[in-house]
Each structure stands twice: as C-alpha cells, then as structure tokens.
C-alpha cells in the first residue's frame, strides 16, 4: 500500500513537471497553430538565469522574477526578430524557425553560462513530508500547485478576458480577426512573451528537483509536447491532465512492471489514445468549411 502511494507521489511530481512544460505550449499554439520547439529552452533559461542571478547574490524570489522577465523579453524578441519577418510563411516553416531558435539559444547559453549542472535550494527545504509510509518533497507540492495555478490562470485568460478571446480569434482566422479590429501582430508578441514567461516559471519551480544545465530543454520539451498531445494541443485542461497522466503512467510502469519499459509503455499509451482520439483527450474536433 505504501508502495502504491509512493508511486502516485512520484507520478504526480514528474507529471506536474510535464504539465507545466505542456502548459507553455498552449498560448503560442492557440495564437498561431505553431508548436514552439524553443519552449524547452525557455524552461532551461528560467532555471539557468535564476541559478546565476541567485549565485550573484540576489535573493531567490528576485532572482526568479528576473529570470521570468528576461525570458519573457527573449520570447518577445524571438517573435519580433524571427517569426514576424516570416509572417506569410506556412506553419511548418514557422515551426522549423522555432527549432532553429532552440539550437541558437542552447548554443548561446553554453557560452554565456557554462556546461555544468546546477541547482538552487528548494523553496521550503528538503525535509520529506511523510504520508502513510510514503514520502513527498515540499518542492513537489510547489510544482503541483504551480501547475494548477498556471492552468487556472490560462483557463480564465482564454474564457473570461477579451485579450484571451482575441488570441483565439487570431488563430482561427487572422484576416477576419484583423477585420474586427484585433491587432494580430500585438497578439503574437503577447503570446510569445506569455509562453516564455510560463516556461521560465516552470524552470524556476522544477530546477530544485530536476537540476538544470544548458541542454535539459530538449528532453523537457519532448515530454511536455507528448503530454500536450495526449491531453489535446491548445487546451490548458488537456495540458494539465496529459502531463499528470503521463507522469503517473511512467511511475506505475516503473513501479509495477519494469523500469526498462517505462518510456516505451508511456509512449504506447499515447499512441493508443491518439489512434482512438486523434485530437487528444480534450482536443475539440475541427471541421474545415470548404
């Protein structure tokens, strides 16, 4: 019994990490149908900038804030310098641009920071919390709460605010959105800034657990992307559920089956789900009018 609970705790911890990364994909995808492959790099930058500003003497909350703001600025710059000039290009070209951007960011941070692994202290210490014989670290709770908070904020943003609806409208039909007076260029800038900020926040929250170095972004983005696909791309609810589901799947497989097949089983389940529900669990079916 305590083993099952331990697997659940592990799954929630890892799943919340995936969910946070997956949530970052949503905004840019909703605004432009572009899957931003530099999202993992935003997560990495969130962790790295916090590490280096913290070691330079800034208090942890300020260091984290600096990391989020700087990364958001980089997200805006990415849109202005790389995505906007290629405005007319098809979505696939834009996705390839984000892959290029991720390689550039990784290379640059290898030079600007270093090639070592880093970590900063957990927010509320490292003493595990005991529940019925199983243990969970306080930082895991931070990550879980963070994932839920970002989910709620995004959900409110897309359903309750005019700006959020403007983002959705831009994705749906850019010309029509412009006709009803939406500044689509501004919406794109905003979505890149917000996505980068969410990525950086994820980096800040998960670094005490996963550790950070210049090359962690790829693996994080891959798992986050898988979680987003599983839950339904573009839907914050899907990102949250997909992330937690993926984490729990991995933990249960490692716990009850074999750790060798942990990733294989997780991806098999994703394949199975997408086979039956190609839009993901919460993805809405889109029909094109011809």
């Amino acid at each position, binding site marked *: 019994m305590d083993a099952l609970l*331990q*697997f659940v705790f592990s799954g929630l*911890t*890892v799943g919340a990490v995936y969910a946070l990364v997956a949530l970052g994909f949503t905004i840019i995808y909703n605004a432009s149908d572009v899957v931003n492959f530099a999202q993992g790099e935003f997560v990495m930058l969130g962790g790295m900038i916090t590490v280096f500003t913290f070691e330079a003497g800034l208090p942890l909350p300020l260091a984290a804030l600096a990391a989020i703001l700087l990364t958001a600025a980089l997200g805006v710059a990415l849109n202005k310098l790389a995505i906007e000039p290629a405005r007319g290009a098809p979505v696939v070209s834009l996705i390839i641009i984000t892959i290029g951007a991720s390689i550039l960011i990784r290379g640059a941070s290898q030079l600007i920071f270093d090639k070592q*692994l880093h970590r900063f202290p957990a927010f509320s210490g490292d003493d595990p919390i005991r529940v019925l014989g199983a*243990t969970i670290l306080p930082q895991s709770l931070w990550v879980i709460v963070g994932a839920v908070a970002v989910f709620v904020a995004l959900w409110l943003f897309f359903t309750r605010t005019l700006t959020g609806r403007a983002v959705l409208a831009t994705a749906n039909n850019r010309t029509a959105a412009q006709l009803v007076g939406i500044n689509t260029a501004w919406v794109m800038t905003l979505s890149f800034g917000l996505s980068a900020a969410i990525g950086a926040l994820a980096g800040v929250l998960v670094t005490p657990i996963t550790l950070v170095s210049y090359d962690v972004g790829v693996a994080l983005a891959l798992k986050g992307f898988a979680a987003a696909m599983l839950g339904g791309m573009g839907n914050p609810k899907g990102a949250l559920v997909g992330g937690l589901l993926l984490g729990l799947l991995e933990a249960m497989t490692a716990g009850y089956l074999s750790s060798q097949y942990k990733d294989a089983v997780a991806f098999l389940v994703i394949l199975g789900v997408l086979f039956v529900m190609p839009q993901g669990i919460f993805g809405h079916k889109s029909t094109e009018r011809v």
Partner: protein
Amino acid sequence: MRSRTTTALATLAALATLTGAAQAEIRLGASVSATGPAAFLGDPEAKTIEMMVEQINASGGINGEEIALTLYDDGGDPNKARTFATRLVEDDEVVAIIGGSTTGTTMSILSVAEAEGIPFISLAGAISIIDPVREYVFKTPHTDRMACEKIFADMAAQDITRIGMISGTDGFGASMQAQCKEVAGAQGIEILADETYGPQDADMTPQLTRIRNTEGVQAVLNPGFGQGPAIVTRNVAQLGFEIPLYQSHGVASDAFIELAGAEAAEGVRLPGTALLIADLLAEDDPQYQVVTDYTAAYREAYGTATSTFGGYAHDAVALIVDAVTRAGSTDPDDIRDALETTEGLVGTTGTYTFSAEDHLGLDLSAFRMLEIRDGGWSAVD
C-alpha cells in the same frame, strides 16, 4: 643596429626552415571533445594538455626539442574525430596522438592510428579499447570493470553480499551495469534487483521503492553520471534508506556533493582517484608530489579546480614525454616501443606499467575508496 638584428633574425628563421627536418620539434597531436555533450570531459583535458605542453617547452622541451602541439576540438562527434585524426597524421605529421574523450571518438581515432602506425593514448573508459591489445593504442583511465571490482571488494569487506542496482541508461551507466553484472558472481556478490532510469528523469523513487521492497538487499549501487546519480542520492535520502549507497567513479567530483546536497550525500561511497583527495594525501604517498603539483598548476593557470578527467590527459602527456625521453627519438615506432616498456610511471590516476599484453597498466590500487563525510571527501582505506 636594429636593422642588423632583423637581418640576423631573418637569416636564423630561414636557416630554421631549411634545417627543419634535422632539428624537428616534437609534433604532438590531440583531438578532444572540448565542446558539445562531452565537454565536461574534454574541456579540462584540452586545458591540461595545453598547460603541460607550455610548461615543458618553458623548461627546455624534451631532449632539447620543443613540443609543437596541434589540438582539435571534435565536439564529441566520432565522424569529426576521424577527420581530425586523419588530418593530424597526414597534414600535421604528428608523431603521437592524445585524445578521444569518449569511447565513440576513441574508436574513430583508434582505427586511423592503427592503420598509420602512430602511437595513440586514449582518454576514454571502455575496456574494449585495450582488450584485445592493439599495437599502437594505449589508454590512461581505469576501466568500468575495475570500478565494479573495487566497489564489490569494499562491499565484501563489510559482509555485504546481496545488493540492488539502479543504473542510468546513458552509455556510461549501461556499460558499467553490464560490467558489474559480469564480475559480480566471481566476487561473491548477488544482484537481487536490477533497475534503470533515463538520463533526464526527474524522480527515481518508484525504482528505489522496488529495491527497498526486495527481500534481503544490503546495499544499493548506482552506476551513472550527469544529474541521475544526484537525483538518486536525494531520493534515497527522501525514502529514508538505512542501507549504504554506492556511487560510481562517474560522479567523483565536488560538483556531485553540491548537486545531491551534503545532507543527502552523507555516507555515500565511491571509487575515485588520488586527484580527488589531493588535500588528504599523506606526504609519503607515492602520488603526493605529482597530484599536488598538477592541481596547483592547473588552479594557477585557469583559476578553477581540475577534475579526474583532466588528470587522464595529464597522465597521457606524462607518458609520451617519458617515452620520447627514453626513446631519444621522434620516430613514431620508437615512441610506441618505449611506451610499451613504461615502468612505474607515477601519474595522477595511478602508477603505470605497460607491457606487450597490458596497454592500460593500472591495477586496482589506482582506485581509492572514498566516503562523503560532512560535505567533503574522506579516504576509507
């Protein structure tokens, strides 16, 4: 006056070019992974090689001849390593090659060195580099198998016979896992649980819970490097294990204690080199002089502490210098023959004695069993 000096210098330079063949400097080639995924290996290696060549030339070279170093950065890419090895042999006409930070790049350079008959000292771990023995290939790092044997010997000394293993699926972890399983039986160790984790995984508590729930496990062994072992160490502390945790030489650096946290890492044992505990070595220790000299010189040159990997490069350069000195020649075949008769050369990794059957030349005494106490290293034996 000035013009006369210039003329003299020009004449000298011209003469030097003319007699270049007769007064040849010793052309040393190197290809290491100073950037890329294996940069944590190649970066200190490149710095060490450059520093040592500079030192040797400043003190008059070998037998009065200076070393001309050509160093390439293969970025951990075996294809690039092969290209650079070929360029070193054909264009730069080197007489010996140091490098191959990873087993992959080593294998590329190795085939070129064997085909061209140039002595090559590898800086990578795999036992397959020198087993079977290749005529021109030597290596300085100890093998994974030796690390397993050292760990198992320490376990046996404490009456630990049944263990659980949790290994990374990265190249290093997988290779060491296989080697350990191979030698365990011979040393009376039984592996009851055999778990793995991905190199980028964030939590290993499910695997560790399985190990904990396996009846009779007396210790846990974690072969791997990168963030995995740090996370395993933290998870072991989180789960409140009461049995000892053994890590591998892959994480034998101060950074590991920092990443895992001094509290979680308390009591962790691993095999490491004398280099890691330079401050703890007794003055009559055979390696005391060479280790302290090297760590001090490295710190002075680069302002940071060196690592075990830099030590591998140090030993490779020392071996070549020793061989060239004894050979009294810069012919690649003479250097190879002299390398093979190296005897009792004290390096930072251990004491090297090569023979026709042994191109590694280290024994288990090269490893020291270390334990983490109060956030620092201490020697067990």
